[in-house]
């Protein structure tokens, strides 16, 4: 369970740091305010949607950390046999990277209010993401063909499980990109009043921002999964595994 514990430790440190700035040591009974003295805190730095996405990614992160934990525990048993990853998964990494870059580009465009550029970025991102999903399916097909189907052995089972979990999140993200495009279309109509246009542009900014964050996270998860599945992380993990099983935590 080392991966999830490390992940949660990072979260706990973050939460602890945040809590330490919330005045948890004040004596609230001594602080009674007079009418008219309670300040409006003003708009907070993050919108609820951004915060919600951050929390959601923490949940998704713990899901993958748990899968990796399970993988490590299983890989330490004596009968583990790895198998060569099909070359296409490495190529897929590039398409996912492209998707993420396109969305970063769209993010900065939306920030400036350049709607047309943002739209191009989102469309390019969606295209690259679709390509990624297709590539992953090709990887499955080629694996199955060469005899490594889902029940062929533990390494294979984990490969399908983890890529499927990641792939479903990517597909969900593609649907969300569709919504983002909808926002852009609405903001780009000619018959909008000045006020309405400003509001719509705000929605676009947030929507594209959320999308870019999400895809960056998906890229990160994929790279970590790839390192684990390809065994590149293996040497490193074996080392950690020795240390941790010595201390009794795996």
């Amino acid at each position, binding site marked *: *369970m080392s991966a*999830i*514990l490390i992940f*949660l430790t990072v*979260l*706990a440190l973050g939460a602890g740091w945040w*809590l330490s700035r*919330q*005045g*948890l*040591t*004040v*004596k*609230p*009974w001594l*602080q*009674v*305010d007079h*009418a008219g003295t*309670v300040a*409006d*805190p*003003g*708009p*907070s730095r*993050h*919108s*609820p*949607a951004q915060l*919600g*996405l951050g*929390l*959601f990614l*923490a*949940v998704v992160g*713990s*899901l993958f950390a*748990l*899968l990796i934990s*399970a993988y490590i*525990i*299983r890989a330490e*048993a004596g*009968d583990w046999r790895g198998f060569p990853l099909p070359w296409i998964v490495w190529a897929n990494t590039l398409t996912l990277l492209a998707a993420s870059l396109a969305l970063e580009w769209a993010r900065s465009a939306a920030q400036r209010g350049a709607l047309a550029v943002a739209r191009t970025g989102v469309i390019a991102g969606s295209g690259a993401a679709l390509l990624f999903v297709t590539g992953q399916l090709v990887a499955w097909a080629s694996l199955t063909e060469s005899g490594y189907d*889902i*029940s062929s*052995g*533990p390494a294979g*089972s984990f490969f399908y*499980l983890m890529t499927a979990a990641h792939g479903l999140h990517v597909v969900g993200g593609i649907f*969300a990109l569709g919504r983002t495009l909808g926002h852009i279309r609405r903001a780009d109509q000619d018959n909008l009043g000045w006020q309405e246009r400003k*509001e719509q542009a*705000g*929605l676009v900014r*947030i*929507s594209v921002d*959320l999308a870019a964050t*999400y895809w960056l996270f998906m890229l990160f998860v994929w790279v970590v999964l790839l390192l684990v599945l390809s065994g590149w992380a293996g040497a490193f993990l074996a080392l950690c595994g020795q240390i941790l099983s010595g201390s*009794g*935590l795996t």
Partner: protein
Amino acid sequence: MANIPHDATNTAPPAELGEMELYHPKSWWTKYVFSQDAKIIAIQYAVTALAIGFVALVLSWLIRLQLGFPNTFTFIDAERYYQFITMHGMIMVVYLLTALFLGGFGNYLIPLMVGARDMVFPYANMLSYWIYLLAVLVLVASFFVPGGPTGAGWTLYPPQAITSGTPGDEGGIILMLVSLILFIIGFTMGGLNYTVTVLQARTRGMTLMRMPLTVWGIFVATIMALLAFPALFVAAVMMLFDKLLGTSFFMPTLVEFGEQLSYGGGSPILFQHLFWFFGHPEVYIVALPAFGIVSDLISTHARRNIFGYRMMVWAIVIIGALSFVVWAHHMYVSGMHPYFGFWFATTTLIIAVPTAIKVYNWVLTLWRADIHFTTPMLFALGFIVTFVNGGLSGLFLGNVVVDVPLSDTMFVVAHFHMVMGIAPILVIYGAIYHWYPKVTGRMLSEALGKFHFWVTFVGAYLIFFPMHYVGLMGAPRRYFETSDIMVLPDSAITLNAFMSIAAFVVGFAQMVFIFNVVWSLKNGKEAGGNPWRATTLEWQTPKTPPEHGNWGKELPIVYRWAYDYSVPGAPEDFVPQNQPAAATQGAPS
């Protein structure tokens, strides 16, 4: 994030809201069925949870029929018995307690107590309920598939959960896993909502340290649930793969009734780690909201500030964090590496300290108080007794070597019923008696409430206190047949019959409660806005029951903490949170 509402640009809740801007549901359907109002969703959650909980209660009678009067009720065979205990346990823990505390009380109380108009993502909130309902229906469906529901125990340990020696190994287990997966998806939508609402939608002046402990408890429990449920999710998906796709994540080479199965190499212990990585935090996911609510009940009805508020908050946070590093105390005799025992026994007993602080502070709140023995207060007091009892027996089971003879016996069953069965249930009842007037505008009958309390509390204690000793004598849990165990004297059979009769009486008292809830809807005393003379915001709404949007035109502003009871010099024995300091008197301190 597929559910970002359209007004996502609203960063802070505006203090004032024009009449036009209040979202008004258009039809009866969107108002009462597909409602996005957290209060309606709360009621939907609560009614669904109590309904399925009632099924679990009936199952507990069937279990007790068999245990108290073995071989008398022949329609309960071993197969059915295991299905009953499995469904009873799973429903109680997940579909009743978790759903009711977070989906029910969380939805109703968080926006009202922090002074928000609603949850921040109302649409996701609505979806959360409907997915939960679907999960419940899938669970119920498993009673009707060939082979019936799974009988693998609520822990669903492989390999037996999916092999043929266990009832419901075909349809039942699959539906159970699917239902759990749905539950987790639905909960995650709700949970993100509760968390972001607490973080971002608090009204002006509502600092974290001014939040009532109820909100603190639900808040921390929700975060824990968000991070712990993925473990169950992963375990359930992997087991489904094993069952349906022939993988061997949890399945070693094994031979069932002379036949080699095609599995091999998997690890049953891996499942146990994943399960308890969720399962132990789950105990506190149920306990922390109960802790929070009971603190507020005691303080309100004893007319005294909760003692040691800061310690109470810190303890909630510390318990929440620590409960992620104790999971394997459920696995002392599972065959895991024996050295784990040292580590997990130590962490487990460390948690006892902040937990004990909470108990002390509840009791110390009663010191020099002005105690009103209302029904909610009685339930809160009953909670303290059962919780202390169950918490202390937890020290037996946490202390690894004492656990060795006791684990997997009826002692464990007695322990967890005291601490996470009866104790939270008592809090739920206390909370219902306390907040029913806000939800419906009418009081529940106090006379029936007191009857309900006494029978439930005394009865439950009589069921579960002696049960510890049945376990001590060596009776294992999940035994269809205990009467013929050699170490059990004949007197134990009498004792079992006694516990069963107590269980039926307790069950009967719950009917009185249901009657009370229904009857008082029309016939209860008019409650007024603040019948308990409480300080927290939900009692200061302009209308009772609160309307959609909760606060009318203007959000309340918070000037003080939630526990200004019996403040020296104040004209009344409570000062609401939205009342500013008197210009002349200054702060009471």
